[in-house]
């Protein structure tokens, strides 16, 4: 019986994935060790001015993927003209490069090669995942346009062949990019040609914007200085360039540091016996049953916990014999009333929202 079941299983058709599976992992991972490190696109290592060094070709010419020599059709030309209008304006906001521009931008790159996936990431946090586990390109109904597209890769010897689709031109994210259609497809052949140079030939097919397939040959040099990628944040408020009467200038630097914080009453040190008077659980007037304020010890201070609204213990700072304030839940302030034995029985004060709050001890 068991033997018959096994025979039937062997005769059963293979699942679709198994039929499509290719062998795409690198045959020799050790041979790819040199892909590690930081790479910069050829001609695009800027000087400290942010411009190309003297004698280097202009950045926009080096960035061939912008399309100045692409075989555009009318729609493609309109996209390029729109791009030129954008860069001639006083400012064009970018949030990253996206694909394909991240492969030919001034932002250094890393290639993180593992057997089943290669990840490409740039200093401006662009990231591409390229699975090399043999999966085919996702069916059209399973993908949608994104800024970085959907990629699959396959190692052919020492060459990583990458197919990419559904890479959306998104000028709101990065207008400095070719205005290809969402239907554009990309095939790259990426290969290390020497320990300090990787080449990437990309062929773009997009009948909606191109009259014929467009091939760009790119290269990356091992970065002479960087051995890691550091991103220094998006500080929109630090843009100091403005136009005054149509002429650009640099604003003086803003004030240093964050805005001044709130000012709290001076703290009064209370002894342990004094603090003990306030410990307990207080029902909050007018609140649903179960809403309580819990006062506990926190080292040489009290803590307060509002249950269930803010059930986290935070320090309560004494600013008088029986008055306290919270700094995390400012402007919350509490003044306790004591009974004849000196034990707190009731409080009034200001809630974290700024309204009145009061309550009495639960026995």
């Amino acid at each position, binding site marked *: 019986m068991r033997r018959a079941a096994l025979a039937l299983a062997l005769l059963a058709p293979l699942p679709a994935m198994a039929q499509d599976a290719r062998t795409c992992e690198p045959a020799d991972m050790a041979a790819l060790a040199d892909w590690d490190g930081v790479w910069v696109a050829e001609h695009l290592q800027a000087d400290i*001015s942010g411009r190309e060094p003297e004698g280097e070709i202009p950045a926009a010419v080096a960035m061939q993927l912008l399309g100045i020599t692409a075989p555009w059709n009318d729609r493609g030309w309109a996209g390029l003209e729109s791009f030129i209008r954008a860069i001639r304006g006083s400012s064009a906001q970018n949030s990253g490069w996206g694909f394909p521009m991240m492969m030919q931008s001034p932002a250094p790159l890393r290639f993180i090669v593992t057997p089943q996936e290669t990840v490409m990431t740039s200093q401006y946090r662009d990231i591409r995942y390229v699975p090399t586990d043999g999966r085919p390109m996702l069916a059209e109904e399973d993908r949608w346009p994104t800024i970085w597209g959907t990629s699959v890769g396959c190692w052919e010897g020492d060459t990583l062949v990458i197919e990419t689709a559904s890479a959306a031109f998104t000028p709101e994210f990065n207008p400095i990019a070719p205005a290809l259609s969402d239907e554009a497809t990309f095939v790259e052949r990426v290969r290390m040609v020497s320990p300090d140079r990787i080449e990437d030939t990309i062929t773009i097919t997009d009948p909606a914007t191109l009259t014929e397939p467009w091939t760009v040959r790119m290269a990356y040099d091992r970065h002479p200085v960087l051995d890691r990628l550091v991103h220094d944040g998006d500080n929109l408020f630090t843009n100091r360039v403005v136009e005054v009467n149509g002429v650009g200038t640099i604003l003086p630097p803003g004030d240093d540091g964050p805005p001044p914080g709130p000012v709290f009453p001076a703290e009064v040190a209370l002894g342990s016996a004094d603090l003990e008077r306030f410990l307990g659980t207080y029902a909050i007037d007018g609140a649903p049953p179960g809403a309580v304020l819990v006062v506990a010890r926190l080292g040489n201070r009290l803590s307060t916990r509002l249950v269930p609204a803010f059930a986290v213990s935070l320090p309560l700072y004494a600013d008088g014999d029986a008055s306290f304030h919270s700094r995390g839940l400012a402007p919350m302030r509490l003044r306790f009333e004591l009974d004849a034995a000196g034990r707190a029985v009731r409080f009034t004060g200001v809630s974290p929202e700024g309204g009145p709050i009061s309550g009495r001890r639960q026995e």
Partner: protein
Amino acid sequence: MAAKPCLAALAALALAGAPSAQAHHSRAMFDTAKTVELTGEVSRFQWNNPHCYIQLRVTAAGGQQREYSIEMGAPMHLQGRGWTPRTLKAGDQVRVTIYPLRNGDPGGEMSSITTMDGRQLGRTR
């Protein structure tokens, strides 16, 4: 066939227009046909996207002080040339050559910078 776009217009695209919510701006605000040499004291070194800036306090022969805002590339570009946020600090004395702002404001785009004894700043790996 439509004409190719003007390469000069494209060349105006600066590497400094690198992203990170950056504001790319035209280089037209700087007079790149002219350079100005400045010697002064760094009052502040601002390490920020989209541009780093040096605030340089320059004292004229008559004793009057003027503070220049000197624009550099993005932190990424400076890192690539061996700079860190600690490469300059307030009080450092430097020699700077800038392309000045066209509107006459005290500032410009960095062309070169050295220490007073002529050393390059930034380190190599």
